């Protein structure tokens, strides 16, 4: 429970940081570049999944990207 509370506080702090980052409002008609597919945080999910699988099998770390995903006995 203590761990979970600490985790929530950490997240709230980072979201607060994001909220104050860049105070300017970007109007909907100014979002032409942001609407492009290549402006996605993960424009190639399948390539990303392949990379994550490789790194998971060769290194001790994981996480940060998404919830869930296929299990593997490779590490």
């Amino acid at each position, binding site marked *: 429970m203590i761990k979970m509370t600490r985790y929530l506080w950490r997240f709230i702090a980072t979201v607060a940081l*994001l909220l104050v980052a860049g105070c300017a409002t970007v109007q909907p008609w100014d979002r032409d570049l942001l609407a492009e597919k290549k402006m996605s945080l993960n424009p190639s999910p399948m390539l990303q999944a392949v990379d994550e699988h490789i790194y998971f099998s060769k290194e001790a770390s994981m996480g940060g990207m998404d919830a869930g995903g296929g299990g593997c006995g490779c590490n």
Partner: protein
Amino acid sequence: MRLQLEPGKAPKVSLRDALHGAALALLMIPATAQAQSTPSDRIDVTSLLYGEQGRTEVVEPVVRFTHLLPDGQSVSAQLAFDVITGASPSGALPSGTVQTRTSASGHVITSKAGQIPVAPFHDERVELEGTWHKPLNRLVSSDLGFHVSREKDYQSLGINGKVSTELMRRLLTVTIGGGVSHDTVFPTGGTPAGLSDGTIVKLGSNAKNVTNVLLGASRIVSRQWLVAVNSTETLERGYLTEPYKVISIMSHVNGTPIGELTDKRPSTRNRSALLLSSVYHLTDDVLYTSYRYYWDTWSIRSHTIDLKYRHDLGDDSYIEPLFRYYQQSAASFYTVGFVEGATLPDFATSDYRLGRLRTITAGATYSFRPDFVTGEITLRGQYMRQFGNGSPSNAIGIQRNFDLSPPVNIVAVVLGYSFDY
């Protein structure tokens, strides 16, 4: 394929066309595929070819089918098949003589004097994943998913889900998600006792349960800049030991390996990761950067920096160089080996992946839409080099003469083909 013909000159093939040809030939795409007028569904096919110098080789074809439904919903199913062959370090130390090792499945492999002993293996893995995406209203969407995977000695069943909502006039997107997975480990030949000579104590399966929580937020900072923070917490409970890895016992006289004990890891592990990402649109190109800090209850800390730079070559093609740097500290129970007569700890491993490690990755992605076939073809090549700690402080005797963690060279190539129909 387009050729650039000029009067009086031999036909030249541009680099772009040469890459097109190579990718098409490798993928064996029929030139008869035709575009259709109303794309509604999508098929993605990728194939991974992975090779470590002198060690593991992997071939992994993946096919993903996505079906679009009314109201912005979609369902997708993905099937992957891995074939893994070769050998991986057993965890044992090298000796001054030739060493022969037999795997649980009966394969035999010989290691030269002074060479890190490796254990041969062959495995196949099948995985099925499914996802259902559903917008709940104009600002809120949800995803539900499942996975089932099976290999010779491992099985995983899991479900996951997440909800995203857009706030502050769609400048901020907050995502909350999670997943649970019930995995089963059934080592070939039975489960050995930890830190033993390999005595089998169990013939059945061992449970491993994984719970994952995700909290994420992305924020539009300007017309051309998007940033995000993701935080994940993963709790693992159950059998987390690697049953085929061993730890050498060194002679206290000269460091020669005189025996082996099995690996033993704690049955709980809490993993935390904080990922900061940025996508920045330059005039035409896009710069992707991310940094991840990872820590867990096995005392591993890691830093990962990932850079990608996408440069459009035209409306239908782009090239994207990539660079990644990774660095981790060792698990608290990692050891290169035991000196004979020493008191054994509660847990220990010599798996180099839990030791001090650095990985450098460099590569590039090239993607294009060919003229004579509908869809997009992607070709990615990567070179990875891993560096461990080759001269650990607790190595003694002859072990000081050997590189106990020689660099690992890895090449990975991914071929992809996607089309709407």
